[in-house]
């Protein structure tokens, strides 16, 4: 059924770079950069969920925030809808905010402790709409219903809620302005497992109901497998592999993706006992001083000399599967090139072969 949906790009990221300057020495001079995100390009199609996974500190959250321009980008472009938000003036950016929202990681800290739930959810409406007070309250109640919060809680303060309830408040707040695109920045990381499932199911239901597009950032690989249509694996500020869900989990191509996915435990005890983990040696290099060539070359089990010299580009090696590795060469019979992408995507978006 979803195959019928036209694969229209909603978000187009080109060569996104986000460097944080390092100032050191007596005069606090600019001596270097933490290259949190170093040249990322990907698209997110309307109605899909793109999962973004990677270990701590690889730049996942920075990508999410940079996409909504909660940081000033170092370079690159982020086109959402038809405007490059990296170049919008602050005022135009502000009026564009209703269509792109974010659900934050820490539901405790991301809500203003001195505002009631109703005030938190209604505040974007005050700013961006001209609804009357009654209409706003009605909208707040609708949103609270949508995320499964009791209407009687509207006048309570955030500290009176549990973590899962607070995350629902955060989601209701994000939904208030009918956004098209929502960045979910580890929305379940701070919740316990039983609540995680509730919140993820809620996000899925809302996606269906409102036709939302998600960028789902997580380090929980099983959860990403559950919710995402396509998955991008990040390592040290760059995308290692970007593939539809099923092929990625069945047959990861990039050595880092292989290592990462080998860490996912299998619920079947028989298969679990036979699971072979790839243990990477060494530590992640500092993002302020990434290695020359491929940024994974210091830890890659399959490293070859060229990896230390040339930075591999993210290239389409199978239909819909993008890998940045010298070892993974495009299959000759499917080297469709970028022009074939839109058609291929229909096939690949769900990560399942068309019947």
């Amino acid at each position, binding site marked *: 059924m979803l195959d019928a949906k036209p694969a229209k790009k909603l978000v187009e990221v080109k060569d996104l770079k986000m460097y944080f300057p390092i100032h050191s020495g007596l005069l606090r001079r600019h001596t270097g950069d933490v290259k949190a995100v170093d040249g990322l390009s990907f698209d997110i199609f309307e109605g899909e969920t793109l999962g973004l996974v990677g270990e701590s500190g690889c730049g996942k959250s920075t990508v999410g*925030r940079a996409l909504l321009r909660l940081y000033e980008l170092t370079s690159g472009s982020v086109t959402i809808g038809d405007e490059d938000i990296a170049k919008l003036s602050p005022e135009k950016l*502000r009026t564009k*905010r*209703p269509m792109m929202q974010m659900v*934050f990681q820490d539901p405790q*800290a991301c809500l203003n*402790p*001195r505002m009631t739930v109703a005030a938190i959810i209604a505040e*974007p409406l005050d*700013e961006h709409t001209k609804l009357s007070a009654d209409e706003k309250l009605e909208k707040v109640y609708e949103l609270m219903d949508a995320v499964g919060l009791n209407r009687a809680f509207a006048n309570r303060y955030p500290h009176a809620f549990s973590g899962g309830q607070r995350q629902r408040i955060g989601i209701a707040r994000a939904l208030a302005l009918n956004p098209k695109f929502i960045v979910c920045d580890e929305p379940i990381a701070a919740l316990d497992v039983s609540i995680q499932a509730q919140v993820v199911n809620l996000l899925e239901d809302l996606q269906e109901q409102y036709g939302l597009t998600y960028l789902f950032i997580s380090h929980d690989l099983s959860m990403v497998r559950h919710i995402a249509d396509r998955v991008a694996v990040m390592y040290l500020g760059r995308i290692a592999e970007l593939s539809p869900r099923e092929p990625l989990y069945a047959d990861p191509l990039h050595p880092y993706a292989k290592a990462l996915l080998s860490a996912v435990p299998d619920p079947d005890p028989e298969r679990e006992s036979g699971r072979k983990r790839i243990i990477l040696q060494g530590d992640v290099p500092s993002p302020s001083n990434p290695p020359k060539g491929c940024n994974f070359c210091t830890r890659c089990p399959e490293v070859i000399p060229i990896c230390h010299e040339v930075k591999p580009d993210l290239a389409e090696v199978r239909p819909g599967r993008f890998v940045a590795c010298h070892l993974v060469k495009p299959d000759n019979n499917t080297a469709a090139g970028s022009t074939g992408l839109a058609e291929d995507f229909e096939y690949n978006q769900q990560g399942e072969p068309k019947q």
Partner: protein
Amino acid sequence: MLTFTLRRLLFAIPTLLLISLLIFLLVDLAPGSPLSQIPLTVPPDVRMKIMEAMGANEPVFVRYFLWLKQFFVVEPLVLWDHWWGTAYSADMQRIVSWQSRSPVMDTVVQRLPQTMTVIGTSYILGVMIALPIGIYSAYRQYSWFDQIGTFIAMIGFSVPTFFTGLVLILVFAVNLHWFPSIYDTSLRVTDWASFTQQVKQMAMPVMVLALYNAAQISRYMRSSMLENLGQDYVRTARAKGLTERIVVMKHVVRNSMIPVVTVIALGIPSIFGGAIITEQVFRVNGLGALLIGAIQGSDLPTVQTLTFIFAVLIVLFNLIADILYGLLDPRIRYD
């Protein structure tokens, strides 16, 4: 909230009693005699009679309990009589100063307006200067504005008021002749000319104390702002697409004000007691000057009464600060 307040007030009673005893013993144990300023030519038996007349030769506990009765029974009755025209306190002994032989409370009431106008103005001015400086230096952390603000705050912090006071007198009174160096308490504001004169004579003491207060409060405001600016809810507010003005003024400043308001409330007792030195430097005839004079003359009843009033104010404003905290921060609920 009401039960909390009542409970705190009840707990304040033993605290204050203990404080009053400690003050009484400390002042009593301090060297010096109430007669040290009387000429040595006065013969010893006359001195003895003076002591007896003042009640200064009684044992310390007799004097302490007498003072307690006078402070908690007689003086409130006098106030009551004064307001309602009754005569309950007609022949009761009030707390009498050993120096001036007049009731201490009358002197306090006479001196209070001077202290309130000068020190109170400086405190309000200090707060009004400190808050915007604190907010802006936090918002533009490490900017030139912030660096200069920090520098001035450090000066205000570390240079004592008697020194800044003397420097100001030297510059503005001695060299420039802009302001008078001595505060004229008898000046009555009746017209424009006397008003400008009042402003002129208030200018220097107010500047000195405002610098001192502003230095402290601006640092509190700045650090509280910095703490809140880094919070996640600020990012949420920006993601909502609010204007920067609303993000800062509505979200960050309101949350940052919680600890600052309590600091401001806690500083109010110092309006009464803390400006002793400054009043002395500028000859403002206020409560501070009264206390200094009483200490020099070993005037035990006055010192005791004034210090105890300061103690009451501190306990009271501590309670007010706690209540404000509960009102401003929804996470804090008493009882």
